[in-house]
């Protein structure tokens, strides 16, 4: 299907923002003690979050996982508040209680982020249930990894979502690795999408490094869900260009494999297409890059200058 220039621009901006944001974190993580916890990035995978979220309306909900920053930025998270949370500052989205791994942003309909692998999937089903129950014109998208598809929670959730024809799109981001384990080392199945059939649910394998294909598949699945056609399982094939997290030396990842996938980087691919189509100039791209770079620097500035929470703040927010 035709994708508007505006949507393409939205995806491009979102991917570049996500990439610069990640690159900045890669840099910051090298400074001992700067960023608490395990920073986990989507470098190279940006087309998935950015393409899927471009296909969504603000009222649509996403549930994400440990590799969330790209998804959250694409859904409209404020880089300042996101960075401040990653820094574990009081001004962050979750007052520093979450840190980098579980950032929840209900105000943009990204209300639950979990780092329990597979944990978001049943929750997404529950969120979609509420949408169906109330007759909302909205869907829920659940992002999870190829490794997560081996958890029992995946199975129970997809079966239930299909049974009840809930308006949910299951987005499996197959980035070749689950921790240090390659895809073919954790399942004998040819694809995760193949599993859809076992639940009576359509399943597709889609190029996850092509923002346009990502967008189109998500748009169709969303449409199906909105029209009462139930859930879809989309497996986006992409690649984790950095380690599992920033502390991972990637010793088990072949260098030439990384390089080959870097060649397939979704950002120049989309910007190149847009330039060829005449809807983007090198100049505009340069200005976009600059603007994004500035906003990332501003986010770092905001986070750096923000205070940590007070120790006793730890006692708040357990019960409503």
């Amino acid at each position: 299907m035709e994708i508007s220039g505006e949507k393409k621009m939205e995806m491009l901006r979102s991917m570049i923002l996500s990439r610069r944001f990640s690159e900045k974190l890669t840099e910051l993580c090298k400074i001992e003690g700067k960023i608490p916890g395990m920073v986990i990035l989507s470098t190279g995978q940006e087309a998935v979050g950015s393409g899927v979220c471009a296909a969504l309306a603000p009222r649509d909900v996403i549930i994400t996982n440990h590799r969330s920053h790209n998804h959250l930025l694409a859904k409209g998270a404020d880089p300042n508040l996101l960075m401040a949370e990653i820094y574990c500052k009081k001004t962050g989205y979750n007052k520093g209680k979450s840190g980098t791994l579980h950032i929840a942003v209900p105000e943009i309909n990204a209300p639950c982020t979990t780092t329990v692998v597979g944990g978001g999937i049943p929750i997404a089903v529950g969120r979609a249930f509420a949408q169906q129950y109330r007759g909302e014109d909205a869907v829920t998208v659940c992002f999870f990894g190829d490794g997560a598809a081996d958890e029992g929670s995946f199975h129970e959730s997809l079966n239930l979502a299909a049974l009840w024809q809930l308006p949910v799109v299951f987005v499996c981001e197959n980035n070749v690795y689950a921790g240090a384990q390659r895809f073919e080392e954790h399942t004998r199945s040819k694809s995760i999408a193949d599993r859809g059939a076992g639940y009576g649910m359509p399943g597709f394998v889609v190029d996850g490094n092509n923002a346009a294909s990502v967008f189109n598949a998500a748009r169709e699945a969303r449409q199906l869900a909105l029209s009462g056609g139930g859930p879809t399982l989309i497996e986006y094939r992409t690649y984790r260009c950095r380690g599992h997290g920033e502390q991972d030396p990637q010793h088990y990842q072949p260098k030439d494999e990384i390089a080959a996938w870097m060649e397939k980087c979704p950002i120049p691919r989309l910007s190149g297409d847009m330039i060829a189509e005449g809807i983007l100039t090198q100049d505009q791209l340069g200005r976009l890059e600059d603007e994004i770079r500035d906003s990332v620097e501003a986010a770092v500035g905001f986070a750096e200058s923000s205070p940590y929470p007070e120790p006793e703040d730890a006692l708040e927010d357990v019960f409503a």
Partner: protein
Amino acid sequence: MQEAGMGQAVNEALREEMTRDPNVFIAGEGVGVSIHDSPLMPTHGLLEEFGEKRVRDTPVSEAAIAGLAVGASEAGMRPVVEIMFNPFFTLASDMIVNHAAKLRYLSGGKSAFPLVVRMKSGSGFGAGCQHSHNLEAWVCHSPGLKVVMPSTPAEAKGLLRSAIRDDNPVIFIEDMNLYFAFMPVPEDDTLIPIGKADVKREGKDVTVVAWSRMVHTALAAAEQMAGEGADVEVVDLRTLVPLDEEAILTSVKKTGRLVVCHEATRTGGFAGEISAVVMEKAFSSLKAPFRRVTGPDIPVPASPPLEAFYLPSPEKLAGAIREIMNQG
């Protein structure tokens, strides 16, 4: 006042809350069409009354059932889901403990998860340890959850209504034996606050703290001891988290003696928490050693004499009371 079992009381509470608030729905295995065709069961007749939209039979998938509650509650709905038997909580525990209980905190207080998880518990049916295993101590040790274990139908009704209206995840545990014990249930719409214990019998010599089915064991033991001249106070916790420390301490300061009775196994059971609170905060009031009367540290066996041996009886409890009456 009508007489009813706890299942019927739960049923009434569900019916009334579902009628009051369209955000309330129930889900679980057999909550609609059930293998039990009995009006004594908690969800009997609700499918007919509220329809398939609000009474959702699920596949045998405990993690999905719990996740359904987590996700739907975040959206402001008020799910009441059932985990059929307490031991199957294990299968839902990641969703409950790592998600329902923690996601609000992780959001910095932005999200809320107003859900109720109902679970059947209790031995006495010869079903064995994979069906009978009281695990309230697990949920009590999971910050972010409230835990309710009523001992009478009337309180089950009032507490469940409060649990459904509470903005936090509440674990609501029903001893199945109480489905078949008929007691008065008011027809009004009383709410019983979560977090308040109830003194079921006043006494001046020894405090017995109990909850759920064991409250009746405690009352029976108290009667027995009354014949021996000991005046037993029975404190029914009703809610384990938040714990009504004040009620416990007030009683122990009066009596100077404490016995805790629970059906769950001994080591690591919630009696330990109560002993710790009392030892921290009413140490000087204590006149005699503490006693616990609990299930032994074994899985619940199926065979009737073994299962009876497992269960704390009024006699065992009276024995423990007797022991410490002679001291201090």
